[in-house]
Structure formats: C-alpha cells, structure tokens
C-alpha cells in the first residue's frame, strides 16, 4: 500500500476521489486496488512487478512514476466540478425510525431536522464498513450526534441515517447504530462487475424528499419488475 496525503482540507475528499480516478486511468501494472478515503488514497500494488535493476525499491519506483504522471495536471479546478447524485428519500416517521427520538434529544422539531438534512449538499468521503456504504461529509453540526447507545441488529436496507458527524445510507440489511431519519429505494450496491457501488469518493449527493405515497408507489414499481 502507498498512501498519498493532501493538505487542502476544504475539499480533500473531492480531490482524493479525482486523483484516484486519474491513477486508475493510468492502468498501472500490478495495481489491484485504488482506495480513496477522505484525505488518503491507498494503492495496493504488487512490488514484484515494480522491481528495478537500480538500487531503488519497488516503492520508490512506483511513487516516482506516479509523481511524474500526476505532476502538471490541473486537479484543483477538476476537483471542484464533481458528479452530482440526487437520491429520493422518504422522511415519513414510519421509515425515519429515530426522528422522534432525535427531535427530543436535540430539542428541534421533526420538520427542522428533516430540513437540516435535505437542504445540504454532501460529498462522499469514503466507501466502507459494508459494500456500497458511503460516508457523506457536510452534515449540519446540529445533526452531528454520536451513535445510538443500543445498536440495531437489523437496520432496514435503504435507511438514511446520521452519526459521528456523517450521514450515510445502509445498502442492505445490516447491524448498525446510526440514527435513522428516512429511507430510499436507491440501489446503493449490486454485486455485479458492471455495477458495484452507486457512489464513489468525491461524488456530490443531494437528498430529495418524497412523500410516503411516492415512496410506496416506487416500492410497487420495483416489486412489479
């Protein structure tokens, strides 16, 4: 693994997502995984394929090569123009299982909490914990609560939740301790080589509120397919 660190905290996730894409496009020999997460990128490489006749280590070889390739690219302007993903979310209390509880903890009305959540534009900081689970940055500080004291053993798939200063979406039924505000039908992960995770590090995300009727209508559409 090689780590690359950045110094520009304002949009480091957008930057690491972009740089990861640039490195992926280089099709480097012996590189199996390029994993951006917040201010770092891990490049999983096979040192055997980067051996050289000089006294340089394989690590020095690949880092040197990357430096030469990335040098001179205008990354900053590109990083400010990332893909926007709009995800419909139903914030009905039947699906937003923790809205009432959070409302009493934070002493804000349920509709305040919903507005605070869907009025922001988020940036995908990392994908992890489970396939397709995205840690979204940009949460309003009011919603920056810690995890529930008692985690659920089965969080419903599609649950949109907050904890630890992030918001995220559970791609499948998983154990979890985040506070659930709503639910989406968006498919966050498919185990096929043409799909994988819906979101990538650096993507921008906006949540679009839908009514329970719209949510149920989408549900029946999905079931009819």
């Amino acid at each position, binding site marked *: *693994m090689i*780590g690359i660190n950045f110094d520009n905290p304002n949009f480091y996730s957008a930057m690491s997502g972009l740089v*990861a894409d640039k490195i992926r496009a280089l099709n480097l020999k012996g590189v*199996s*995984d*390029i*994993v*951006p*997460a*917040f*201010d*770092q*990128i*891990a490049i*999983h490489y096979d*040192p*055997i394929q980067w*051996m050289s006749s000089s006294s340089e*280590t*394989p*690590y020095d070889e690949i880092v040197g090569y990357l430096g030469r390739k990335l040098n001179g690219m205008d990354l900053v302007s590109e990083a400010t123009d990332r893909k926007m993903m709009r995800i419909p979310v139903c914030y009905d209390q039947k699906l937003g299982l923790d809205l009432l509880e959070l409302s009493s903890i934070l002493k804000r009305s349920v509709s305040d909490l919903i507005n605070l959540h869907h009025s922001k534009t988020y940036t995908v*900081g*990392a*994908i*992890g*914990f*489970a*396939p*397709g*689970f995205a*840690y979204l940055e940009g949460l309003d500080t009011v919603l920056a609560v810690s995890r529930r004291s008692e985690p659920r053993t089965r969080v419903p798939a599609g649950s949109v939740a907050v904890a630890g200063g992030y918001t995220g979406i559970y791609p*499948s039924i998983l154990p979890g301790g985040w506070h659930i505000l709503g639910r989406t039908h968006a498919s966050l*992960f498919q*185990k*096929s*080589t043409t799909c*994988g*995770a819906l979101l*990538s*590090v650096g993507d921008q995300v906006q949540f679009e509120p839908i009514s329970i009727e719209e949510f149920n209508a989408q549900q029946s559409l999905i079931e009819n397919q």
Partner: protein
Amino acid sequence: MTNKKFALIETLNPGLFTTIQDKGRVGWQAHGVSVSGAADLNSMMIANLLVGNDGDAPIIEFVMLAPTLSFSRDCVIATAGANFSFTIDGIPLSHGRPVKIFAGTVLKGGQASRGAYGYLAISGGMCIDIVMGSVSTDTGSHFGGVAGRRLKTSDMIFFSEQFDSLSPFKDVKSRGDLPFVSTNWGVKDLFGVEAREEMLLRFIPTKRWDGLSNKAREGLLSNTYRVTNESNRMGIRLVGEKIELEQVELQPSEPVVMGTIQLPPNGQPIVLSVDRQTIGGYPSIGTVISVDRANLVQTQPGSSIRFLEVSLADAQGALIQENNAMKDLFRTIESRVRELN
C-alpha cells in the same frame, strides 16, 4: 462442449469455519468490498498445484477444526497448510502430497497441533459461482462460496465433468492395501514455529508509529503478545502490554491492508486479516510484512508473538527473495505432478 456437473463432495461434518476460497476478491475495495480469499495463500497454491490445478483455483479452507467429507467418485486431493490429521478408515492421510482416493471415501478431519488454517484441494473444476471476479466466501456480505456462508452439514459441492481426465494418477484405477494411493514425495509446511516458541512478526511502521511515545513503542517492541480466542478471518486479536496513545483524537477512517496493526482504545493491538473491511477507524501503527503473512495467520490462539520493526526496503527485499523461492518450489511441484499423468 456441454458443461455438466455432478455432486462430488457432501459435508458430513462442517468443522468449525470451513469455506470456499481463492486468492480473493481483488479490485473491488473502492466499492467497500472486502478482499477475503485464502488466509495462507502459499499453502493454497501448494495444495492446488499438488493436484494439477491452477494455483488459485477454488479450494476448501478450514480453521482450527477440519470438516468430514464424503466423496462420490474417484479423485485426486491434497492437503496443505496446517496438518489437521485427516484419516480415511482410521488410516492417516499423507499431508502435503497428491493422494488418489476412491468413490465412497469418507475423509475425516481432526485438529491441528500446529497452525490454524488448512487447505484441501481437489483436482478438477469446482463449480462455484464467481461473484465480482472471485469465488471467495465473504461471510460478512453473504456472497461467494456456497450461499455466501461457511459450509454446513449436508452441503453438496459440485464439480464439472470435463476436467476429470486432467488429474494426476489417471491410470491408477484401484487401491492397494491402503484406502488411498499417494506419492513417495511431498512438500513441507512453510510456516510457523514449534509449540511454546514465540513467533516473530516483522512490521513496517506507519507515520503514526513515529508519533507514539518512547514508552509506547518500547512496549510493543519488547513484550510478547498472546493471540486470543477472539481471533478470526477479520483479524488476529492480541493481548499483552497495553499501548497508550498520547493524544486520542478523533480521526477519519483510513484505508487498511492485510497485516495492518490497529490500536483500539483498550490499547491491545489487532492485526487485520483477510476478511477485514476496506477502511478502518482505529489508528494504525504499522503493517506486518507480506512475507510474514503465513506466520501471522497460522499462529494458534494461545500462542505468543513478538514484533520486530523493519524498513520498507528490507520488507520488499525479503518479498523479492521469497517470491523467487516460491516460484522455484511451484515449478518443481508442477513438473513432479506432470510426471504422474
């Protein structure tokens, strides 16, 4: 060509944690997908090559307690990694050798006196659905292998008809005095230490290692750590001298790798293994080097380990050396197996 398949193996007893693996689900970590795969890759390669398979063909992996399996047809098998004292009709099976067994064989697994992970390769084409480039069982995400889980009693493992004739010993049609036929040569285990000795694990320090206090660094370097029973394919959990982080600051999760040494708030290190998640929130203070992977995973719970700090250059030098040695070994096995055909 038709691709008919047949049920070759039935699980009579699944053992403790028996799964189908290969070299892992490589290339999907940016999607949050764990790599999984055989914990001890060298032993997987050896077992597969001994039966004439590709080194990273699907294989059966077991941990601490091996399965008992019945076979519906003649086939060639090999075990490698930890020796789980398999028997057929009460007679010990040769370990680390190609072995021809016959229809109706019940292969009974036991425990390993040394090592934790064992591998059973079966000659031919195991029919397991490929999920994102790999058959490896990811029990956390419930995909790969047999229904995305560890094997249970009465599971059937299917094989393709068309690979049958490629097996070593294809001319051996019947057993002699023993319930199996084996070679007079084999491969030694390449990992581990004898019981009661300490396993030495070399690691490359991270930037965070340099930020630890002298006392914390000395603590890790000069004490032995015991592998606990909570260790599994996610990570090897250690207990010993507590390592104190001077500043416990909330940090964003960071990418992790096989061998990442994490320091949770209780100060007892965890070394991440094959089923690790792709990113981790605990501070990582170092990485156990790739060459020591087999020694890391094969250390039994209750055994002791010790850490030794090495440079990245030394680690990569050792990897290049090991790679040459393994290539030689693999070539030797392949040519000896070809002679059996």
